[in-house]
């Protein structure tokens, strides 16, 4: 399965198991979503459980919060993460705080799915990585898978979870892993172990990172598309790096991070989002708070630049093999 099919399967299974799970969003019904993630769900589960919505993201999330308060488990889709901003108030001031402010009388068991990230020539409004905005806001969980297998297991866990969860889907790797070289032929999940996805139910606990590659020389913290780019760079450079795929940013798997950095003594953080106040800053602070006396080199942060996503220059913006490779050299300089 590719990642889209895995995501589709997760929703399908959850709708079968739980009549309270409903799917909604722009174009998700008959058409099955602009990325086809909801294909076939309406035909199978009916129009009152899988339906198109008006084009108002603030409405979509606000309505989902109300449905959640009734007792449903809405899985709204925001067509591109770049369009989540009109829904910010409903997500941040409402969904994220409902449990807290009502002392648990009302909750928001909603799972907001949204494709994010660049590398598809989407320009400024189809490429952004806004995860850092939400990790900054208390009360909302943030999940980012990097493989079809994880996507399915994590999405099932997110839908079962009683808190509001953002599920950001790295659209660059919907169809296959990406090594950062856009001019090489695209890879396909069918030839990748993580493309083997069980058709039935399984879940992956939120808040647990995964060690993608064990190593001793340094720790690389990454998520989404960047996990694959890092793995390719590391393989090419022949460095014995430990690559940790965070999988969920909130809650964060601090034990795995801490153990890995203490073991390797070096830490590199890679994300596609802009640098300033990005999630990498938080990771960097956590690592230095907890692992400072084990560090043998300054923490390295590799990120997108602090500019909007530029259409034609997107590969200069993207933290690709060169930027990661240079950072690797720097952090390993006196190893």
């Amino acid at each position, binding site marked *: 399965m590719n990642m889209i099919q895995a995501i589709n399967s997760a929703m399908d299974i959850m709708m079968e198991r739980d009549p309270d799970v409903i799917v909604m969003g722009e174009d998700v019904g008959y058409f099955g979503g602009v990325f086809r993630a909801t294909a076939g769900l309406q035909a199978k589960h009916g129009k009152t459980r899988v339906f198109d919505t008006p084009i108002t993201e*603030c409405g979509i999330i606000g309505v989902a919060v109300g449905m959640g308060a009734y007792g449903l488990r809405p899985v709204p889709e925001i067509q591109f993460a770049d369009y989540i901003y009109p829904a910010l108030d409903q997500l941040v001031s409402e969904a994220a705080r409902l449990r807290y402010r009502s002392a648990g009388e009302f909750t928001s068991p909603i799972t907001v799915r949204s494709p994010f990230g660049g590398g598809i020539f989407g320009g400024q409004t189809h490429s952004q990585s806004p995860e850092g905005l939400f990790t900054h806001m208390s009360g909302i969980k943030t999940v980012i898978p990097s493989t079809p297998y994880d996507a399915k297991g994590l999405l099932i866990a997110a839908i079962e979870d009683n808190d509001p969860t953002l599920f950001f889907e790295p659209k660059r790797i919907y169809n296959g892993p990406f090594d950062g070289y856009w001019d090489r032929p695209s890879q396909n999940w069918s030839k990748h172990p993580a493309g083997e996805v069980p058709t039935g139910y399984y879940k992956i606990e939120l808040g647990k990172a995964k060690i993608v590659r064990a190593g001793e020389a340094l720790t690389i913290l990454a998520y989404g598309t960047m996990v694959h780019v890092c793995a390719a760079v590391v393989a090419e450079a022949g460095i014995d790096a430990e690559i940790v795929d965070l999988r969920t940013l909130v809650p964060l798997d601090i034990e795995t991070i801490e153990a890995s950095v203490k073991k390797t003594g070096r830490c590199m953080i890679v994300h596609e989002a802009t640098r300033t106040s990005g999630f990498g800053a938080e990771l960097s602070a956590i690592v230095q708070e907890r692992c400072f006396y084990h560090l043998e080199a300054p923490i390295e942060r590799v990120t997108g630049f*602090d500019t909007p996503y530029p259409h034609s220059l997107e590969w200069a913006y993207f933290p690709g093999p060169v930027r990661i490779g240079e950072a690797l050299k720097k952090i390993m300089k006196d190893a």
Partner: protein
Amino acid sequence: MASEHPRANLQPLTLHIPEPKFRPGDAVDFAEVDVPPAGEARRPDTADKASDFIDLAYTLVRVLDDDGNAVGPWDPKLSPDVMRRMLRSMALLRAFDERMFRAQRQGKTSFYMKALGEEAVAVAAAYALDYEDMCFPSYRQQGLLIARGWSLVDMMNQIYSNTADRLGGKQLPIMYSVKEAGFFSISGNLTTQYPQAVGWAMASAAKGDTRIAATWCGEGSTAEGDFHSACTFAAVYRAPVIFNVVNNQWAISSFSGFAGAEATTFAARAVGYGIAGLRVDGNDALAVYAATEWAAERARTNQGPTLIEHFTYRAEGHSTSDDPGQYRSEGEPNAWPLGDPIKRLKDHLIAIGEWDEERHAAQDKELAEQVKAAQKEAEKNGILGHGLHQPLESLFDGVFEELPWHLKEQRQQMLDEETASGRPWDRKA
């Protein structure tokens, strides 16, 4: 305490989920679409109160009848010369779209969006506005630039993100910005231009200027909160602005019912705000012209905003990324009861003896050549498919007026990367 079965006698509630009339494979019959006769709608005085002509938000202002005659009180009585120019602009827009669509299919650029079937909406409005008025378009009003005589080569440069792209390759193709031609920078985020147009119009009024603003969005986009904020501000301050809602029946795969069309019209959105509302045959260039001219006069005489719904049909896919065959009947574009806007204006000009089929065919040929020549010219400046055309460091231009330290640092980092890489991002031809 509530009893065990407190509501046992009540009927269960049900949820209504709208469904379009036709899906792939269905035969299309638009008999249910209410098309009132041309010339029937009354034309109020532009000084009348909005509440005195609410009926116009529910009918269809039409000028051109089935025989190509211009009839009724909304006939703008344009000179044949102006009508021929409008016809030419619409045909040029169609030729441009056709060519750029193909360029995308040939891998010359990443994306394109056509306005096929709704050419009259932007073109006729452009003719009815003053060149000095500011337009806040959505992504399907390239007809404004074409009608304003803007350079096709300049538009194509933007589409190709090439060395001559005035936007420096920063924007998705078709997201033009041409201040000189009164064309505001297009956003990919729907309907954000609506309150901005109101703000521009309010500023113009506050300064005692005479220029007005006009803005466009699709019917699907009227659901966005920004649309409603704009209406409220415009009504409160009587802003000199024209709101255009292009009801082309489809928003990607969602039919207009998901924006509320089953319950009322989009022009009727105006009623609740106390704004003037007009519903217009959007495939009738003369009706679009007349409505825009009328709304502009209201704005210019401080009668406030007007909301015009253009009832039309999107005859092509949403964009190059979309296949309409997946969600709607193939028969729809041809069965659409309001016809083709270009053909309707052409037929009118022929009916009044000011045009003929031979001249039209010759013009189409000439326009195709003009577009082809422009394309050749633009491609001299490069195409997106052939790699980068902007200096790398320009990536950081325009984030702020002046580059702060952290961007200077990042720019240096990027240039060092280039040196280290031997330019891996130089994409192959």
